[in-house]
């Protein structure tokens, strides 16, 4: 009996000291309210905590819509966690503002990751994503056939003229309420993510990427003007609606209201379930190559973390193909590697959304990599909304340039 008591005590003490040995790492994640996402991230954390005895990750989930504000408030209060996740285009701002520190992971492990999943600022890797997202021109093969349209490919996307001819054909058919659904009901980050690639394909940009110190010429030059006129024409000529009911954005394509919908891979399964002949076409080439947005949520380490090696260990652990595939299967996003894609239901060879992996590889362009992007994105959004609603293109873009330049100046060039 005594032996048993001693053995039990030793076991309890050993367990207790092992538990004590694990240093807690706090982590914030944007997935609250998303049951599937929460389940996967919790699984990764449980696996990591069980895989070693040094670190124990403890998760606090936030709803996505409130996440960025929570992080900024946490930074102001000096209360950031060790590990956080960050939306790709926002990362440079948080790194510049001193909220984040560079990752300490073996970069050879992310060599084969999609470019949009790697968050570099000032030459250093600050964040890494398990997935990327892509946008495509969603339609049905039967629509293309009925309208007598060529099916564009990655190698040979539609030109601007072909795209406009397709919209003309759809409009003339009288079958649809609108030929094109750009997704005007989705405000916020959707605008720069989804629409700035059109501008970049015209040859313009939100800001001059050679210096990141001005938007002059990029957002109001000849190419940007051509883009602005084209953008306004979409609404003025009745191809698309400038103001859209969110319900139409969610269900309009499935209800047959639109011939073409500019939408992301996250909505692809819904369309495929409604119409098995749904096809995902590459972005049209408006003259400067076809472009789509890149970079989604990524993991990083807060600047105040006292345990960056532990946080890096967790992030490196999470980069395993099985977790990339689990996230992809769970929430439909594009896994960061081809090997992980091969393990997924949707992106494996012959999978219903395989095309998105190719789109990301071939057309993706990250949004401007600058701390000023968070302001520039809002200015861009407002300018595009105004132009869609009939504002003068030249003066609207000039005003946007002035606002962006003033912000860059006010912030001392944002460290560029």
């Amino acid at each position, binding site marked *: 009996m005594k032996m048993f008591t001693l053995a039990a005590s030793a076991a309890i003490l050993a367990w207790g000291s092992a538990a004590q040995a694990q240093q807690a790492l706090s982590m*914030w994640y944007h997935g*609250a*309210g998303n049951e599937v996402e929460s389940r996967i991230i919790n699984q990764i954390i449980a696996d990591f905590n069980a895989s070693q005895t040094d670190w124990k990750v403890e998760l606090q989930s936030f*709803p*996505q*819509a*409130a996440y960025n*504000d929570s992080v900024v408030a946490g930074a102001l209060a000096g209360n950031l966690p060790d590990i956080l996740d960050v939306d790709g285009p926002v990362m440079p701002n948080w790194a510049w503002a001193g909220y984040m520190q560079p990752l300490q992971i073996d970069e050879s492990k992310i060599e084969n990751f999609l470019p949009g999943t790697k968050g570099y600022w000032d030459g250093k890797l600050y964040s890494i994503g398990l997935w990327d997202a892509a946008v495509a021109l969603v339609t049905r093969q039967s629509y293309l056939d009925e309208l007598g349209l060529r099916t564009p490919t990655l190698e040979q996307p539609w030109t601007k003229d072909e795209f406009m001819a397709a919209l003309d054909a759809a409009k003339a058919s009288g079958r649809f309420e609108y030929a094109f659904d750009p997704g005007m009901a989705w405000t916020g980050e959707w605008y720069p993510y989804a629409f700035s690639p059109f501008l970049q394909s015209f040859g313009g940009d939100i800001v001059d990427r050679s210096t990141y110190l001005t938007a002059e010429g990029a957002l109001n030059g000849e190419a940007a003007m051509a883009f602005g006129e084209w953008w306004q024409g979409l609404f003025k000529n009745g191809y698309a609606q400038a103001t859209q009911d969110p319900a139409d954005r*969610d269900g309009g394509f499935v209800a047959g209201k639109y011939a073409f919908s500019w939408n992301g891979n*996250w909505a692809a399964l819904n369309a495929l379930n409604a119409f098995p002949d749904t096809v995902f076409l590459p972005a049209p080439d408006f003259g400067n190559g076809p472009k789509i947005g890149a970079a989604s949520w990524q993991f990083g380490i807060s600047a105040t973390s006292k345990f960056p090696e532990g946080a890096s260990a967790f992030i490196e652990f999470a980069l395993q193909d099985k977790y990339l595939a689990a996230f992809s299967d769970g929430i439909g996003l594009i896994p960061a590697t081809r090997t992980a894609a091969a393990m997924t239901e949707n992106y494996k060879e012959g999978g219903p959304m395989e095309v998105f992996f190719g789109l990301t590889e071939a057309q993706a362009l990250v949004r401007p990599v600058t701390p000023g992007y968070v302001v520039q994105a809002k200015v861009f959004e407002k300018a595009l909304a105004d132009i869609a609603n009939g504002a003068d293109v030249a003066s609207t873009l000039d005003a946007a340039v002035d606002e962006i330049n003033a912000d860059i100046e006010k912030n001392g060039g944002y460290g560029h």
Partner: protein
Amino acid sequence: MAMIAADNRGLRLVTRYAVLVLIAIIFVFPLVFMLMSSLKPDQQLLQDSGNLRAFLPVGDISLQNYTDAFQRAPVATFVFNSVLVTGITVALSLLLCSAAGFAFVFVRWKGRDTLLALLLATLILPFETIAIPLLMMVAHLPWVGFDGVSWGWLNSYRVQIIPFIADGLTVFLFVQYFKDLPGELIEAARVEGASWWQIYRRIVMPLSGPIFATAAILKFLVMYNQYLWPLMVTQEEGYRPVMVGLQYFFQLNVAWGEVMAYLSMITVPVLAFYLYLQKAFIASIASTGVKG
């Protein structure tokens, strides 16, 4: 002649009721829409939203959205937190602000008018202007609890309650109301030897039911609808209130039925509180219209 007068009266009555019904419809229909939508699957909800079916319990009706809402978010925790924070804040606010109003109106002391003017000046300051300094302050304040002294109030109920107990508007409401109470009553009580506390408790409070109800409702609404502050100070899910919880339902593809179910559930405490104090609230509004 009498017939014409009676007809006119009847017509006026019908017109008046028609206008009142119309106004009632405008106010009630959003609630009906919310309740009916909470019972429908998303596809039907969206289809119905453009016609009168949106206001009727027709089609595929069930409580599935409510079940799903509970699975998506800890709804009960959010409601409990909001009711707790709001309830305590309202109770303490009524006590403190009415006492302050009493002191401003009935007690003579040096600097009274200046302090009242300063207090009223805070009415023009939107909360957003002080949110960040307040956050930085509460993040480093001490607190004495069962575990001894700790630093920082983040992730607690007190950080959601204490900064909102006293505010200029509530004090102002009490000041305005107390000014209209008959001064003779207070003077008589003083002559009889009553203390200030006795006057406040036994004379002023019993005469001030309507303003207590009004202040309670206004404070309740402000506190129950808090979003920015709790978002800034509650990183732990266990302390989040209903409005932050609402964000759990806005994913990439919004589940509108669940949103409506959640909104229906979090509206119940507000409606119950309003209905409970409705008579006193109306009496207060009415009394403000017959001054002089």
